């Protein structure tokens, strides 16, 4: 799970108050986590209204489930997983006729003999420093262009940092499907980033 949900939620006293239904503790948790949860919901649902609904619904579920929350996961992680499940369920509901999605024009091309075609310039060199805000924005924008199946697998594996087994369970597919889809998604994302990251591009 991304770092940052680490406001000291996991001390026993705070959890005890939450489990007991303490409104002030619940409010503290809501105020501290809503922005991050909303950002996650927007990435999956790509619609602000739907994202807000998902966050609200997730807190309602969390509120009901809190008395039984055992603290085996960190509270922030637990909230996050409720939200992600809700987002995926909403996407599934909205897709009346699931068809196999394709990455048209987003995959590398090869000559008939298997050699790489259209080799463009190398990417400009990457500084060792952390990702810049500009790059972060670029990456999220490009991830947003991927077809939903491929976008979801990148969001779950790279952004939410779930492992292959967890993603397979959430998406109800096999682990090998997750791996193949992730590889395709990375290839497509590479293709989409290429014009912006080539040497000589801005």
């Amino acid at each position, binding site marked *: 799970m*991304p*770092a*940052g949900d680490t406001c000291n939620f996991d001390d026993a006293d705070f959890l005890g108050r939450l489990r007991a239904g303490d*409104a002030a503790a*619940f*409010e503290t948790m*809501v*105020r501290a986590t*809503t*922005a*991050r949860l*909303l*950002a996650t919901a927007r990435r999956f649902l790509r619609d602000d209204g739907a994202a*807000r609904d998902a*966050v*609200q619904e997730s*807190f*309602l579920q969390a*509120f*009901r489930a809190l008395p039984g929350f055992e603290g085996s996961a960190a509270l922030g992680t637990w909230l996050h997983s409720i939200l992600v499940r809700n987002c995926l369920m909403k996407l599934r509901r909205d897709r009346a006729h699931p068809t196999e999605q394709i990455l048209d024009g987003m995959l*590398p091309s*090869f000559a008939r*003999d*298997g*050699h*790489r075609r259209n*080799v463009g310039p*190398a*990417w400009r060199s*990457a500084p060792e420093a*952390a*990702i810049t*805000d500009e*790059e*972060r924005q670029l*990456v*999220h924008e490009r*991830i947003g262009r991927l077809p939903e199946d491929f976008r979801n697998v*990148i969001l779950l594996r*790279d*952004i*939410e*940092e779930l492992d292959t087994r967890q993603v397979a369970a959430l998406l109800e597919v096999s682990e090998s499907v997750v*791996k193949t889809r*992730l*590889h395709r998604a*990375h*290839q497509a*994302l*590479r293709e989409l*980033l*290429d014009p912006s*990251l080539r040497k000589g591009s801005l």
Partner: protein
Amino acid sequence: MTCEALINRFLADYIDGSLSTARKADFRLHLALCRACRRYVASYRRTIRLAREAGGSVPGVESLGEAPAELVEAILQVTRGS
């Protein structure tokens, strides 16, 4: 090993470290000889790194902004009511 096999079939496993020793040797030999694939692999690795870094929040760098007040209110209303 062709460029296509390297890029489509073996690259993800190579990066995972799950290629067999023999396959890994083939993979590296191809890379040593093929500039196109070296470029591809470098940009593929960088893509994964960027995607992972785009998720992790760096304190003080990511600007999530404030949670919308009306959303927070709505959430608190619902739970007060139940």
